[in-house]
């Protein structure tokens, strides 16, 4: 039997280091919970029931809050509670322009895998997460801080879920009046948008909303079904979502390729992308594609790029941005 050569040990060690360095969810066993009673914030004890059916009892409305999903963060900011920590601050600043963060909001890691250590160091009153986060990570965080878990989205009732989420967050931070005002504004903008569509004689016009992604020579296209938030909002505006395929049960998104777009007639094709983080799948990825060039909505110039930074999975403020952008694009 040969002895294990040194290079083998080195290679194994190097691999082990790389693998362990990539995990950012550290063991949180050593941390201790430090929720203290009697913080300022106004109001008495609050109890809310979250998406897991769990009751979250707080001695007072939370003021030091961490948001782990951008829709949640937008809700907090729009309610006037600047979070102390946010997952992927830089990504948020690129993708969610409706409710900008103050400087100095701490970054607590990536959305799918936040750093429990960074969370513990912030010592917040409450962490708001969504059911998209794996339960084992939620459990780890919950050992330190109360966690309010929301359902990120529901394809069965997309607009209602967005409203419920805002209201639930508002209850936890004691800002229910602000939430009611935001939702009132949202409904008003939606009604106004529908009116503008009607005035322009566009009611019943077929539309689709999409985004795309390039990898090598492959452009993947993601369609927003009427189970998605903005797909449903489009229907509320009096438009007709021309993408009839089924989406996922939460976000209502469906996958297709460029060939799949041939099933669409001459619709209004809306899409969004983000110059700060990615290549434009439709402009550069499909520019030379024979199918794309033959599509009726491309031939007739009915492709509309919405402004960067409108978060299609956000709260009322982002959705208002979408309504304005979509109505502007169609009526101009």
């Amino acid at each position, binding site marked *: 039997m*040969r002895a294990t*050569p040194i*290079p*083998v040990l080195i*290679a*194994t060690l190097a*691999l082990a280091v*790389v*693998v362990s360095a*990539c*995990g950012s969810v550290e063991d949180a066993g050593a941390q201790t919970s430090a929720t203290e009673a009697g913080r300022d914030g106004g109001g008495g004890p609050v109890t809310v029931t979250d998406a897991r059916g769990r009751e979250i009892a707080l001695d007072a409305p939370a003021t030091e809050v961490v948001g782990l999903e951008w829709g949640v963060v937008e809700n907090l900011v729009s309610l006037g509670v600047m979070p102390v920590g946010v997952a*992927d601050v830089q*990504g948020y600043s690129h*993708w969610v322009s409706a409710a900008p963060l103050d400087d100095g909001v701490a970054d607590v890691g*990536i*959305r*799918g*895998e936040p750093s429990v250590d960074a969370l513990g160091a912030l010592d917040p009153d409450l962490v708001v997460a969504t059911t998209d986060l794996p339960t084992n990570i939620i459990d780890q965080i919950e050992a330190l801080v109360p966690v309010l878990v929301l359902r990120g989205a529901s394809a069965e009732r997309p607009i209602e879920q967005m409203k419920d989420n805002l209201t639930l967050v508002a209850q936890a931070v004691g800002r229910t009046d602000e939430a009611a005002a935001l939702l009132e504004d949202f409904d008003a903008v939606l009604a106004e948008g529908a009116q503008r569509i009607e005035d322009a004689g566009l009611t019943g016009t077929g539309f689709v909303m999409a*985004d*795309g*992604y*390039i*990898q*090598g*020579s*492959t*452009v*993947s296209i*993601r369609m927003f079904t009427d189970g998605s938030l903005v797909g449903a909002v489009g229907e509320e505006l009096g438009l007709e979502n021309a993408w009839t*395929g089924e989406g*996922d049960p939460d*976000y209502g*998104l469906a*996958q*297709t*390729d*460029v*060939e*799949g777009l*041939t*099933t669409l007639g001459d619709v209004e094709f809306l899409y969004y*992308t*983000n110059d700060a*983080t*990615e*290549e434009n799948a439709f402009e550069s*990825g*499909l520019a*030379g*594609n*024979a*199918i*794309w*060039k*033959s599509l009726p909505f491309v031939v007739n110039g009915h492709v509309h790029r919405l402004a960067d930074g409108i978060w299609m999975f956000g709260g009322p403020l982002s959705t208002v941005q979408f309504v304005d952008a979509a109505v502007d694009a169609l009526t101009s």
Partner: protein
Amino acid sequence: MSELTASRSAPTSGRAPGEPAAAGPVRRLGVSTLFIAGLAATVLLAAVHLAQGTSSVDAADLLRLATGRGTDQTAAVLVASRLPRLLAATLVGVALGFSGAALQSLARNPLASPDTLGVNAGAYLAVVAAAAFGLSLPVLPAGGLAFLGGLAAAGVVLVLSAGGITGPTRLILAGSAVALALRALTTLLLLLLFQESTTGLFAWRSGSLIQSDLDAVIQMAPVVLLAVTGSMLVAHRLDVLALGDDTASVLGIDVRRTRLVVVLLAVLLTAAAVTVAGPIGFVGLVAPVLVRLAGSRLPGVQRHRVLLPLSGSAGVLVVVTADVVLRIVLGPQGGVDIPTGVVTTLFGSIVLVWLARRYRDSGPTRQSPGTGSRLRSRQTVTVVAIAAAGATRGGRPGDARRGHLGAHG
């Protein structure tokens, strides 16, 4: 007189090693029948493949187009979606078939493949890593990166298995372990990627043949062609290498250099396939096995000048079949949602289990020439085989080990 001389000189004439003395018409007929049968099946499946997709364009539309009565839309779908997908399948199948056959011969083990040796995983990790850190690379640099990743993975596997000194089993074990680790890393990077590029959350798929343009296929085709030609040029050396390292050295083959060249070619082929379509798993494992099974009664199949191209066409057959079956079973939408790589990997893992059970005790001492050993023993016509018979039969226990040591010393 001249006839007599010829027949007498035949067994001892100075033929190139590996070149059979009697490539009779029967065998040639058998091999070409196999090749034609495979080609016919591929063409048939390719026709079905072209008629599948997310648009309404079907076989009838394509027939109308062929007879000059088709619409522009049909032509666009054919040119910009269906043909690129078929060409990608062909390129990936050829590349992985050649790569798998070469690696199996090199490791003298039917369990060897770009997948079980970590090459696939390494190449894919490199591409994903670039994407995860926001690099949007053109096709050729991405291919270069995949090559380096695959080479690094192969390097680690060779170091872990001490260059295969202790035999194929350890090589495969090391390869599988490295492949697992690399896949775990890739998953982590994909998590990171989702954060960076939010649209990628649902869009990133692996092992898909869907192409929006021909750039990747066109730029990778020369690379594959080059590596395929290279493989054919060293094919006869692989024939000799199959007899054992000692024998090959005695017969004047530079074992170490041959191994290096073949590894480089196999990694290059795998990297090209990964660049075009992501990790289409286990094609490199299955294709040569299919050829060996189909050709088990055709001794000539074991010659690498036959085995390599047959494996290449078997690779195409496997990839196209997987893609066709995927769309037949799950419909056109399933073809978008489920990567083709999932189908080939499912099929491949079944073959892997079957092989592993069958070759349970394939250590270096018992079966050094791998699958070929039993088949080859029937084929005692080559000069080389006769010359080597004593050495391989008598000296088989441990000869691989000594051969490797010799090659490394």
